[in-house]
């Protein structure tokens, strides 16, 4: 079968992709959390983080955070070159303490949400979001 230069350049499969292995948490993450909490202990209930298990598009990953009664929720993408995504502040008149947005992920990593709850304590939730090449289905 003839093969042309044009075909040789038509990159298929995964060749055009640049995703690498799961990204380790950026060292600054612990510092950022400590700064947010003032070093206080962090519980694991009180904040919910909704994110896909596997991102359909790592450039725009929908996430939602919710923490009833919280005054602030910080969201970090632990493996991004710049981990801070957003800190949502809720005033006393806020009807609900829920926020959703889309974030960009450099690769497979943990997304972390830390909430400052009504009683001043802190809660943490994290979810691994996989950024994958994909390509084979059943």
């Amino acid at each position, binding site marked *: 079968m003839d093969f042309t230069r044009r075909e040789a350049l038509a990159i298929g*499969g995964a060749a055009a992709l640049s995703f690498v292995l799961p990204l380790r948490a950026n060292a600054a993450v612990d510092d950022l959390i400590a700064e947010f909490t003032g070093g206080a202990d962090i519980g694991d209930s009180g904040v919910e983080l909704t994110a896909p298990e596997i991102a359909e598009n790592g450039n725009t990953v929908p996430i939602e955070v919710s923490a009833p009664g919280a005054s602030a929720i910080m969201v970090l993408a632990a493996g991004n070159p710049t981990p801070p995504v957003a800190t949502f502040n809720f005033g006393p008149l806020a009807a609900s303490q829920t926020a959703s947005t889309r974030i960009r992920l450099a690769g497979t990593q943990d997304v972390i949400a830390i909430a400052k709850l009504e009683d001043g304590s802190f809660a943490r939730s994290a979810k691994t979001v996989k950024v994958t*090449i994909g390509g084979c*289905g059943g």
Partner: protein
Amino acid sequence: MISRRDFLQVSMAASALVGASGFGNWSRLAAQQALTQEQLLQFDTFGNVSLIHVTDIHAQLKPIYFREPSMNIGVGANKGVVPHVTGAEFRRLYGIDDGSPSHYALSSGDFSALAREYGRVGGLDRVATVVNAIRADRPDALLLDGGDTWHGSYTCYHTEGQDMVNAMNGLKPDAMTFHWEFTLGSDRVAEIVKGLRFAALGQNIFDAEWDEPAELFPPYKFFERGGVKIAVIGQAFPYMPIANPGWMFPEYSFGIRDENMQAMVDEVRAQGAELVVCLSHNGFDVDKKMAGVVKGIDVILSGHTHDALPEPVLVGDTIIVASGSNGKFVSRVDLNVQNGRMMGFRHKLIPIFSDVIEPDAEMTALIDEQRAPYEAELKEVIGQTDSLLYRRGNFDGSWDNLICDALLSEREAEIALSPGVRWGPSLIPGQDITREDIWNVTSMTYGEAYRSEMSGEMLKIVLEDVADNIFNPDPYYQQGGDMVRTGGLGYRIDISKPQGERISDMTLLKTGEPIDPGRNYVIAGWASVNEGTEGPKIWDVVEAHIAKLGTVTVSDNDSVTVVGA
């Protein structure tokens, strides 16, 4: 007072008895002589509701051979448990005699010989006979199609799914959910769905732009059957835009969305649902995990991973039913629902032995009508096979070895990659290979066979990535399917390691040299999810290769060493 749990346990035993009467009790010769339609359909109608489940038909309208896998490794909590039990071990687990019809239908081993004895399986006209017989017992039985219906054959490709839509209309399902259907492109899917005579369900089919439920696909539908208010919730394949080309259906977003599933279960319960059925294309392990996370689902009809199980698997109070693929099985599930609770069930996985089950004449005519315009092309003999050609297996199947050989030789590549899909019937030694047979294992809307260069480093990243999509210990991170098949490349894989550490000893088989991370290799493959992929169609590549060979002999592929399983 017997608790609900006890009831389920008791009826689980009852179900096993039905399974036993349906499976494994016939001696080999007796079976050949005496296996009757009546026996296959025998079922003591139970309770007040019947569900009929078909799934992953992959456009197989006619009887075929289909060999089940001999390797299907489970990881994490699913290691060594069904459906990750194969061959003789599977038969021991369910008390199935070697050489029995159930051996042939449900497990690998001695396949070619048993295929000659028991003949082909499937055929939608035989499925129609079974469905009609169940409806004769229970006229208001619900027929539910788990999806992967409008994909996988020559006629399906050329009619853009219309042959399957027409044939399924003849079967009159009540609802379906989706996966490969979306690879027809979102416009075509919308066109078909708008005219569909049954519900198109998917609680996890969302509008990509607004991340809101997509209007075209309701999350659930209510049915009143046997005086019972039944809610059927759809669950489409969660990872469509990742495992298949997302650019073909950019309007949609999927995902498991188990929190929304819980919300839907709560919603239908609040509206008075007495029985909640999830029609799922998650894949078996994902369904098992979801059954533990989401409370209140009575029955999950599981599809995608093509597992055929003679008994349901129980997770808490949820039963999970797996009904195989390629039209080879129909599941019947009878339920006793009282006062809004599922009090018991009786189940039978009915293998469609095509020589035993009488075809339904009306459906035969309908199928023939779909095929008539293409009959000459379908029947054309391209070559013969001396070997058993099959697809299922975690790392290779002889069909894929042949496809990889075709890519290496026709595309003059050093390494070939072939996707680890699980659809595609088998051929037994001595059979002709027709054009239809080639299309049955290659047909898709993105079948371009690309040729490009890839560095050794990138090749490893690809293998690691695909391996993690299959062997990640958390089922929610698995996409179903099998490992990408390789031609011209050997490697060692340690299943137990994390991503990035599983693959080692990559070797270019042609020279025996280790793969050099820094060197570029000429790679040929097909089924790229990338837009704009160019190359000849894979079925043309394979046809050219087989035509040159005349008679195909495929040797075992021992180029992958598997450890840690």
